[in-house]
């Protein structure tokens, strides 16, 4: 009975989404206040029903309702409750429901926290979100219904893929979707602007916090996914340029370009067409990612079950949403150069160059991901595109961006002062060279490690230099507005990330060893003593657990317990043991006993010493924090009156932000 309620709720949500999608747009077009006022309540109503449907599905999992086919396929009696919740989004149908759920989270948030937006504009924004909801709800109801029953009801279910039974999996998809789906807000703002012809700065100011927040979530989601792959999948690798990883990375790259472009358009009024186009691209890439994972067009470790019917449905949806928005852009985007002029040497140009690099990087990732498909289409034979392509070109494209980074805050709007730029270049350059020389002594000739240090110090010293300048020149309380603090933290995150990547990639040591109990192997600067294997059990698994003692200079540092688990359905999973540290990770994976009949004897083990690997995710977290902080900038929440005044074309003083800081 209850699952049917869930299905019914989705149907009602679909109707409300249609209402939300159609009536307010007509209202905004005709100036009909009553129709426009439908937007908020409709969004609230849709939200209520979608939240209810999600609740129903979670309830079905928690109560072991195996009469629901999706629950039976993805959980069983032995699965702990927290993984039964994870199983809600562990497969295709549930993940689609999660998508719509999060779309509604953003819509309800927007409907609640947007008092300062003019009604016509808000109507259009909510209407666009409603129409997107229509597409996804229809997709769920007609092709991917998680509430379908399985009769007769089985006594016990299948299982959630053991790889997904990890805290990372509980966390990664919802956070990632908050980012992916969050770009729909920037998208909706741009469509509303194109429809309404309101192409002054004000709408970009309203869009900025939402866009920064979505980007921060996406950053966190990608970091979580990378960390989870490292911890759970036992490769010691943290990024594989897998098609589905790329599907989340492309919107992220365009998102970086977008948040910077929004800064330009908000503060100077210039390049609005680029800002709009980038927000269309960002969301389009999010939708594209959704398509790629579910259509079976590309094989991937991640891919959900593929079905041509579903693939075609999503493709049709893409055509309407993306094609429609790009057509609208072609017709309605501003054609005349607006806003304030800027000299060739200026922050505007700097951001344009950086955006070009990021957008090209996104295009490169798209090209590489799709090239096997292009190869099939053009009969070029089976082309294999992997990390040697992506990693190589990505570094090539990002290197100039890293070089530009310290100059960012020093480049003034409109026209930069060459003097300041050379000063910071000198400071950062000297610091980088000195650190590189020092690193050369420790790095044993690993060029990548040295280059990584140089690049990171270049960015860090330049950023620090600006922090000091700002501290000296501004009075207390006005030194670091949230937006600027966010920028500085995020840029610092880049430096940390570069160190993490370059050092861990060049200085990691890995060995596959055969060890009998009592034997010791040396990897990097640590000795690993294998102390045998014993059996343990968990809620839905039993395991062979090894004990490995780590010694440094003869002193015991820690003991690690890698496991080889067998789950209730027979799947075998390796749980690597990781000793995490800020400056290095020690990683041990248990393989097979050398003699399958003698579990007490020697085993194969894989041992790693990975320096600075945590800095990769730490850098990502700094970037996320920067984005989140920037989203909190008070100026973005300017009162409606002030916004309206600016919309009527007042002087520049208000637009830059000094006015509304108080």
């Amino acid at each position, binding site marked *: 009975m209850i699952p049917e309620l869930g299905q019914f709720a989705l149907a009602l949500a679909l109707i409300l989404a249609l209402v939300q999608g159609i009536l307010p747009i007509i209202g905004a077009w005709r100036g009909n206040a009553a129709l426009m006022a439908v937007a908020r309540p409709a969004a609230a109503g849709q939200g209520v029903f979608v939240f209810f449907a999600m609740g129903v599905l979670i309830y079905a999992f928690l109560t072991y309702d195996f009469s629901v086919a999706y629950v039976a396929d993805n959980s069983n009696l032995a699965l702990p409750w927290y993984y039964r919740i994870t199983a809600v989004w562990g497969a295709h149908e549930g993940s689609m429901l999660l998508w719509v759920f999060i779309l509604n989270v953003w819509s309800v948030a927007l409907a609640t926290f947007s008092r300062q937006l003019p009604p016509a504009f808000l109507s259009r924004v909510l209407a666009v979100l409603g129409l997107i909801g229509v597409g996804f709800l229809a997709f769920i109801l007609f092709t991917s219904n998680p509430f379908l029953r399985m009769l007769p009801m089985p006594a016990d279910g299948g299982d959630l893929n053991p790889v997904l039974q990890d805290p990372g999996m509980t966390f990664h998809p919802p956070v990632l979707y908050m980012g992916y789906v969050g770009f729909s807000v920037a998208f909706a703002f741009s469509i509303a602007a194109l429809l309404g012809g309101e192409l002054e700065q004000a709408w970009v100011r309203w869009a900025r916090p939402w866009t920064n927040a979505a980007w921060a979530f996406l950053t966190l989601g990608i970091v979580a996914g990378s960390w989870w792959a490292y911890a759970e999948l036992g490769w010691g690798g943290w990024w594989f340029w897998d098609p589905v990883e790329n599907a989340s990375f492309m919107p992220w790259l365009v998102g970086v370009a977008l948040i910077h472009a929004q800064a330009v358009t908000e503060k100077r009024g210039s390049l609005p067409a680029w800002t709009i186009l980038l927000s269309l691209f960002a969301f389009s890439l999010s939708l594209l990612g959704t398509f790629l994972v579910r259509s079976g067009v590309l094989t991937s470790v991640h891919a959900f079950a593929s079905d041509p019917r579903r693939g075609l449905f999503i493709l049709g949806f893409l055509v309407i949403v993306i094609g429609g928005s790009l057509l609208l852009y072609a017709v309605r985007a501003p054609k005349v150069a607006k806003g304030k002029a800027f000299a060739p040497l200026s922050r505007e140009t700097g951001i344009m160059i950086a955006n070009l690099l990021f957008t090209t990087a996104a295009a490169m990732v798209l090209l590489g991901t799709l090239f096997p*498909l292009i190869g099939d*289409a053009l009969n070029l034979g089976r082309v294999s595109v992997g990390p040697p392509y992506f990693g190589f070109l990505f570094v090539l494209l990002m290197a100039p961006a890293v070089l530009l980074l310290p100059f960012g805050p020093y480049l003034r709007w409109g026209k930069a002062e060459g003097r300041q730029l050379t000063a910071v270049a000198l400071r950062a350059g000297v610091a980088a060279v000195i650190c590189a020389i020092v690193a050369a002594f420790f790095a044993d000739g690993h060029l990548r490690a040295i280059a990584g240090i140089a690049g990171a110090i270049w960015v860090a010293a330049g950023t620090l230099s600006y922090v000091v300048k700002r501290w000296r020149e501004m009075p207390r309380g006005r030194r670091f507005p949230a937006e600027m603090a966010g920028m500085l933290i995020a840029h610092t995150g880049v430096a940390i990330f570069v160190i993490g990547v370059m050092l861990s990639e060049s200085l990691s040591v890995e060995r596959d060893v055969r060890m009998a109990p009592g034997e010791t192997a040396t990897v990097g600067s640590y000795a690993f003593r294998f102390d045998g294997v014993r059996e343990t059990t968990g809620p839905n698994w039993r395991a062979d657990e090894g004990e490995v003692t780590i010694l440094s200079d003869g002193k015991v540092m820690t003991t690690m317990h890698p496991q080889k688990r067998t789950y209730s359905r027979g799947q075998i999973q390796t749980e690597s043991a990781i000793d995490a540290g800020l400056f290095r990770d020690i990683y041990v994976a248990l393989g097979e006993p050398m003699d399958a009949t003698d579990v007490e004897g020697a085993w194969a083990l894989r041992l790693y010493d990975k320096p600075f690997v945590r800095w990769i995710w730490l850098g990502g977290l700094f970037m996320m924090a920067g984005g989140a902080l920037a989203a909190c900038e008070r100026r973005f929440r300017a009162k409606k009156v002030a916004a309206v005044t600016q919309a009527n074309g007042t002087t520049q003083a208000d637009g830059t932000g000094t006015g509304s800081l108080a």
Partner: protein
Amino acid sequence: MTRLVPFFGFLLLVALFGFGIWWNTQHDQHEIASPLIDKPAPAYALPVLGEAQRTVDKASMLGKPYFLNVFASWCIECVHEHPIMMTGMKQLGLPLVGFNYKDDPQAATAWLDQHGNPFDVVIADREGRTGIDFGVYAAPETFLIDAKGVIRYKRIGPITPEVLDREIRPALAALAKEGS
């Protein structure tokens, strides 16, 4: 006009995806086209299953085209393919050579006893080294080798009635035409 560039770029992408969906229904993404098609089969010399003293090598098989079917007792798909091996493939009239891949001889013999033995001779590659030379990466796989010892066709995965009609019969017909 330049503002329409993103739109047309997107349409190209849609065309590509549409093609991808269609292509997927026709092909198995996991298949790797063999680079050995129309190239001489690797030289091999393997013991016969159960008769270690007897060896079959490439030279001894020259003169007539034959099928080489890679199978193993641990291979689930081979069980599904086996009925066709016993009937349709046998009816084609060509010698069937079983290539027992990375298997335990006793298990393989028991498997053939249980499911039937359509092969004229079964050779055993216990280590898989000859398999590497043939580019084998999974069982079942089937090769069509012509009278001169050249690989003319390779099937990755089980042979089904559709594959038999759509691919194998035409390949044989092409061979026959060459002969005459």
